[in-house]
């Protein structure tokens, strides 16, 4: 049996390497000072030259700012919508149909959604701008955020809410005192999902964006147009930030989960 366990560990390690190796490769070659795409020869060769060059770029700060702003708006709107769907989910008889409806957009290919939205917005005379990108990103991230939020809502025991009502709470107080504290994690998770998905999303942004490009659009442009290695510095930078955020989310979730998981009577 121990042999099986070792094999499983090796397999897991292989999968993880397969997933992360390309990203880490970019991270490593971003420290190579010459214009060649290679791993730095020796330790002393490691340089942050391209990182410095990166932040001197003209269009980059604007693109970063655009992506972050769009990400925040997407996070807020998505969080609100998934909260509402959580509240609705509680009261519904045909829960699985509702869930299916929420998840459905995932199955439509991104480029089709992007193009249809672009045509649709033109039709209703909504010109391409940050707003249209946000709308596209909300549509994109809502199914994922909803899943996260609905998980915490389905762990919510109806009896506790009835108990609050029995003791005198109206609908709002029941939400504020009982529902919200117990589903906070799921709502925040939904928001985080919204932010992260939006930040990394390219195809919808490409079709729906106005004159200001987002970060993924900037990177795409750089790769197509032939760029200096600062693009690798950007990749390394994004990777590092993503990992930090991921660690943060996981810590937060595990704290919240242990608090509400001991919710058995």
């Amino acid at each position, binding site marked *: 049996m121990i042999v099986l366990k070792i094999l499983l560990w090796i397999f897991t390690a292989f999968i993880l390497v397969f997933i992360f190796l390309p990203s880490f490769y970019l991270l490593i070659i971003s420290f190579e000072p010459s214009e060649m795409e290679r791993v730095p020869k020796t330790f002393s060769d490691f340089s942050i030259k391209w990182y410095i060059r990166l932040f001197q770029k003209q269009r980059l700060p604007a693109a970063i700012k655009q992506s972050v702003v769009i990400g925040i708006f997407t996070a807020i709107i998505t969080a609100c919508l998934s909260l509402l769907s959580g509240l609705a989910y509680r009261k519904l008889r045909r829960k699985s149909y509702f869930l299916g409806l929420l998840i459905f957009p995932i199955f439509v290919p991104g480029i089709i959604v992007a193009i249809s939205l672009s045509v649709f917005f033109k039709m209703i005379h909504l010109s391409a701008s940050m707003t249209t990108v946000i709308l596209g990103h909300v549509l994109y991230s809502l199914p994922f955020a909803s899943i996260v939020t609905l998980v915490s809502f389905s762990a919510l025991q109806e*009896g506790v809410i009835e108990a609050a009502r*029995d*003791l*005198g*709470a*109206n609908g709002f107080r029941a939400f504020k005192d009982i529902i919200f*504290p117990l589903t906070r994690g799921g709502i925040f998770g939904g928001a985080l999902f919204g932010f992260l998905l939006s930040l990394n999303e390219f195809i919808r942004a490409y079709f729906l964006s106005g004159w200001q490009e987002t970060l993924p659009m900037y990177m795409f442009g750089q790769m197509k147009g032939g760029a200096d290695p600062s693009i690798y510095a950007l990749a390394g930078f994004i990777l590092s930030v993503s990992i930090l955020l991921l660690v943060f989310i996981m810590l937060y979730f595990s704290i919240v989960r242990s608090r509400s998981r001991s919710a058995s009577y």
Partner: protein
Amino acid sequence: MPKVEYDIQMKNVSKEFGDIIAVENLSLEIQKGEFLTILGPSGSGKTTTLRLIGGFERPSEGEIYIQGELANDIPPNKRSTRTVFQGLALFTHMTVGENIEYGLQFKGMNKHERRDKALQSLTIVDLEGVYNRKVTTLSGGQKQRIALARALVTEPPILLLDEPLGALDEKLRERMQAELKNLHNKLGITFVAVTHNQEEALTMSDRIAIVNCGRLEQVATPKELYESPKTEFVADFIGVANIIEGTLFEDKKGTKKLRSDELEYFCPQQGEQNTGEKVLLIVRPEKIEIGKKAASYDNSFDADVENVLYKGSCSEVYATLRNGQELRIRVESKSILREEYAKDTITIGWNMEDTVLLKKESTA
């Protein structure tokens, strides 16, 4: 004589969930200050009935009056009832104190008043010193008391309890039964409990409402239910009963008798049943005598002993009459040692007035 006040009146209440009729045409009046238990098997509609009283379900038909006021449209947070839920429904993200004080927030008390009342109610349920603990750290019995304290601290006139002792082990359950009864006597308010446990209901209640398939079978004191059941279900559900089915007739002397499988039994003479009707004769096990004395009773038969089960202070004798009718007889264990029981054939007997005669209802 003082007029009886009713805290809860249910008039022809029905509740449907789609195709399922959970409660059917139920009319029940609960007296102020009494301890009434709604007793029935799983799926009988007893929990639904309690939820209707608490306001967590709206009646499909009929009216519910709480302290004289029509309550159909009143939501649970505006009703004067308090509920102790099955599964307790304690707020796990709050401490014990916060749980108990929750309801007091809506009564316009300040922080200190709430704290005092909460500490008081902890004393009433015999659980001091846990005010600051998180509820998740408590034992089952302690959580039970917290749920009680939380409901009682707002001093409701009516307390609803849904299977209050279900999750507790045997010994704890016995103790809690007595404590609940004491609490009821001390507080003097109306308790309405729901359970499927017969013994619990018989121990704690002033009256018991027996429900089956969403309908009320009978509501009476435990003694009345046992001695004078009004339906076959009640006779069978409460305690043990020998039920003999047959046809009612009158003999030459005009005495009412039951004919069942070639044997004739003397019946209670008073009754609404008519000759020729299908009836049930209910004979309680302890009303049957065994031995020499048995021959002197109205109904006296020879029977074959199938089994004798020792059950502590009482024992049960399973015997069969010559027509195959099986009977359960309860005797004191010490009398089994007597000679007559050692035989395979015994004489048994009972008085006709110690039995109950019911009309056999056609099963739907």
